[in-house]
């Protein structure tokens, strides 16, 4: 079975928010709800400056702290390594939001269920259905695919760029950043 992951190249990312809006529409989120949030960094002093935009979303950690602490088992890791939430089990206790060091979960206003990026998992397809953040990225900064397939685009890209999780080995994150 595949083990899905993503590479995000912040050298290319221009912080244009397209991924956030595309994701909202694909996952029918509210206008104020987002699975992707952004950190904007600026360093140096004029005129020697540099800037960086870093999109943050669920890292689908293999050792997901949110999955460990979820009392009802609403949060589970499926066989493809994608961390999902069963909206029918979630009681909205928000323990997962406390446990997640990346702050990438959000409370869905109307239901109180705590949701997050699902890698656009499609149950009918039994796989990720063309993640909209990758499909829409205008700077070609995102690569998605099966980490276990050595010649998949994402595996090749991660190896070629020595991409690393944003917080090192804090968790076994499956989004790898090139910075």
């Amino acid at each position, binding site marked *: 079975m595949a083990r899905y992951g993503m590479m995000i190249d912040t050298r290319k990312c221009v912080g244009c928010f397209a991924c956030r809006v595309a994701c*909202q529409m694909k996952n*029918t989120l*509210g206008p*104020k*709800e987002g699975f992707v949030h952004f950190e904007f960094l600026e360093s140096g002093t004029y005129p020697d400056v540099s800037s960086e935009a870093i999109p943050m979303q669920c890292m689908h950690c293999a050792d997901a702290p949110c999955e460990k602490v979820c009392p009802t088992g609403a949060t589970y890791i499926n066989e493809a390594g994608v961390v999902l939430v069963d909206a029918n089990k979630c009681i909205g206790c928000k323990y997962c939001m406390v446990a997640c060091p990346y702050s990438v979960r959000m409370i869905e206003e109307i*239901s109180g269920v705590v949701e997050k990026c699902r890698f656009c998992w499609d149950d009918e397809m039994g796989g990720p259905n063309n993640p909209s953040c990758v499909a829409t990225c205008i700077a070609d900064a995102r690569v998605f695919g099966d980490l276990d397939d050595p010649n998949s685009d994402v595996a090749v890209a991660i190896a070629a760029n020595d991409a690393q999780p944003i917080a090192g080995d804090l968790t076994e994150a499956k989004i790898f950043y090139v910075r």
Partner: protein
Amino acid sequence: MPALGRQTIDALSVLFARTSEEDYASAIHAYGEDAACNAPWGDGGRLQAPSFEEYRHFFNQVLTPGVPGSLPPVESLYRDWGGHRAGLQHGQGFYLGPSAAHVRQVCEQLDISIPTEFDAMPDHLIILIELNEFLCEHAPVEQTRAFADEHFSWLPVYRGALASRMAERNDDQLAVACTYYDAVLGFLETVLLQGYDAFEAQTRARSA
């Protein structure tokens, strides 16, 4: 619900449609000064009805779709539908939410046709009131109650939105109409959601 209650509501629904001066006068008159039930407004005292000009100004500025900052009385715009419908329609402020689809489905079942001008807003307050009235006359009580609970639950949200928007604007030309419409919505809310007897109890309590 007693006939008088429904007749009042029918008259009130006129306030949410663009009407002629003559219809407006008869509507205000219908439950205003000499209606059998004492004026259901304000704290027991009589609430001054806006003149036709004030009503028209209020209608143009606040109830007409497309005018910036207006709040058309259409249920879909004030309910948040979650993943029910297409990607675009999650969150408030969008037409043709599931409430619209549901009203259309009910009308189809009852072989009732909605005028084309309401194609985009079958869940406009006027249509909801008329449909509710029709169900009161013909449909089993508990089904009508279910319909009313479902399709009038947004009235408090709407009333709140209206009040805060008017506070933001504080346009004194709209003042009289604002308080009046707020009271009308209060009446509709109570009667349609809790029933006419709840309203009468409230009036008695207020005037006691």
